[in-house]
């Protein structure tokens, strides 16, 4: 059985993509392999950014030449044209090879696209992500993606793309693109030879305490702070899963949802619904249920959900 405390954490995530990484200190961390959809989204964002930068680069160069022509200057000196040509060739080479390399060598080990969808590159063995690994995984990107795409677009523009070559190119890109779906760690060929994988790097924010007691103190001045006191029988109907669902409801703080949940709990424990005072009621129930379950935890008794 999965650890009961996992329930609240792993909801909405594919359990098949969950891995355990044991730090040198011996603490097991949950690592989630990035799903193929996130990888594809990141790639498209990156290609868009790359294309945009490349077009801007080419336009800037053309602009320099045009300005000279407009201003009726004598033709650009050979050396300047030569310099621009060198710049263009080197720029094209860098666009093809350096963008992914540069960003993945950085501290965050993620390109703009990967940052946008919250994933990063990591070493599969849990150790350091070395420069060699990043170089290896990105050199292979050249044949996985750029080579066939450039071959097809250039020969397509020249009109020399035969039907067979087009299908072969598509099959080539397709087989490399589908490769991550055919293994459980979503490895692309480049990841395979570099010993890397792409994992989710969520950036969670520390939210406040779920129930700090203010609702009970403030909301209805005429009532006592401890107006909701639940007995053993009333608290024993739910387990950790329900507790963490309730936590979600309290954090979201949607009045309608709270009303529904409060009514459900009251129905279950046989109390009259606390009309207009749902938040205080739910916070009190949450706090006392959590106190009870955590006390059980300290004695080694855990209860995953209401059915166990």
């Amino acid at each position, binding site marked *: 059985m999965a650890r009961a405390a996992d329930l609240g954490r792993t909801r909405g995530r594919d359990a098949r993509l969950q891995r355990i990484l044991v730090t040198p200190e011996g603490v097991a961390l949950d690592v989630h392999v990035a799903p193929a959809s996130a990888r594809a989204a990141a790639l498209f964002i990156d290609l868009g950014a790359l294309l945009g930068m490349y077009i801007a680069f080419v336009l800037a160069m053309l602009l320099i030449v045009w300005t000279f022509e407009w201003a009726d200057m004598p033709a650009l000196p050979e050396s300047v044209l030569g310099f621009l040509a060198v710049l263009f060739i080197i720029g094209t080479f860098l666009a093809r090879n350096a963008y992914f390399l540069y960003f993945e060598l950085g501290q965050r080990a993620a390109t703009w696209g990967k940052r946008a969808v919250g994933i990063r590159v990591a070493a599969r063995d849990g150790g350091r*992500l070395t420069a060699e*690994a990043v170089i290896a995984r990105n*050199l292979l990107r050249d044949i996985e993606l750029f080579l066939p795409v450039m071959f097809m677009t250039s020969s397509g523009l020249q009109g020399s793309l035969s039907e067979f070559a087009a299908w072969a190119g598509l099959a080539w890109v397709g087989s490399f693109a589908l490769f991550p779906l055919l293994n459980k760690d979503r490895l692309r060929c480049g990841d395979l030879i570099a010993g890397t994988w792409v994992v989710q790097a969520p950036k969670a924010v520390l939210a406040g305490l779920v129930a700090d007691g203010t609702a009970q103190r403030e909301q209805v001045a005429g009532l006592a702070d401890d107006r909701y006191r639940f007995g053993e029988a009333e608290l024993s109907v739910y387990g950790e899963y329900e507790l963490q669902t309730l936590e979600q409801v309290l954090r979201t703080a949607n009045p309608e949802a709270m009303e529904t949940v409060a009514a459900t709990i009251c129905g279950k424990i046989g109390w009259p619904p606390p009309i207009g005072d749902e938040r205080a009621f739910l916070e009190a129930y949450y706090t*006392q249920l959590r106190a009870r379950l955590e006390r059980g935890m300290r004695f080694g008794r855990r209860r995953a959900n209401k059915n166990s």
Partner: protein
Amino acid sequence: MSEPALHSPGEQAVAAAVLRSDRFRLEREGDWQRLDAMVTAMEKGKLRKLSDDDVMALPVLYRNLLSSLSIARESSLDAGLIAYLESLTLRAYFMVYGTRTSFGGWCRSFFGGGLSRAVRSIWLDLLVALAAMVAGAVLGFWLVDGDTDWYFRLVPSQFSDVRVPGASREALLNTLFGETDGDGLGVFAAYLFSNNAQVAIMAFALGFAFGVPSILLLVYNMVGLGAMLWLFASRGLTVEFIGWLSIHGTTELLAILLAGGAGLHIGRALAFPGQRSHLVALGQAGRTAAQVMAGVVVMLICAGLLEGFGRQLIQSTAIRYGIGYGILALWLAYFFAFRPRQA
């Protein structure tokens, strides 16, 4: 089931005010948030902006965070808190254990022995690649020798302007010692570099298919060379042609040899992983080969400069030989004789 002992009014009042696990959290969240801010700064590459106190405290804060996570998992049911700790721990873990040396530090270890070690460790693949290249050149020479029609199929069209079978000795000599102005040389060098580097990257990356395409690419690249060698040899220009080729070719061909060898290294790990699992073997081979490839790119920059400038500006065969083989000797000494003690 009832547990009256645990439900005294006093205990419940404390629980209602602040849960024990919430107290645990309130006591420590300042440290977590301090570490969070540091990790965020490091992720943005602002490591230098951290104060000395922060840097000193990092290992301690990290270890405290790990123990907080372990305790929270066993004593708190606050899912939001645990998700935060999990995420922060993972980020801090990547920072603490993922920190690489600076770019300068990497360069030092790379050029100061890492590259040489990587090249030496793939010696077997280099021999195979060398054999493929020699075989390619011999094959080109032999094919054209048998039937000159082969020449037009083997040599790329950019080289078959006047350099065709039947051309006069003077015409061929002119291609070797042509008059050139200095202007277009930079463009030429850049073009050669970018083109050769892309071929080298391909030779490396195609090694993934058991190395077969890498070998084919090496053979294909050398067949044209063999054919041109036949052409110049047929007019008694062998020595001049090799001089024209050597000034940059020793560097360029060695780089392509290394790239092909790196590709073969990966293909070999895939086909014959030995005692290791395929994944482990591929990972190790890929990282070694990637180091070689970083060296290849550096070599191709040198080759592009030599070819673009050196070959056009230096018109003496003797000096061309001297430069070409002098540099080759330097490369070989660097790769095979340079063995600094491993740090």
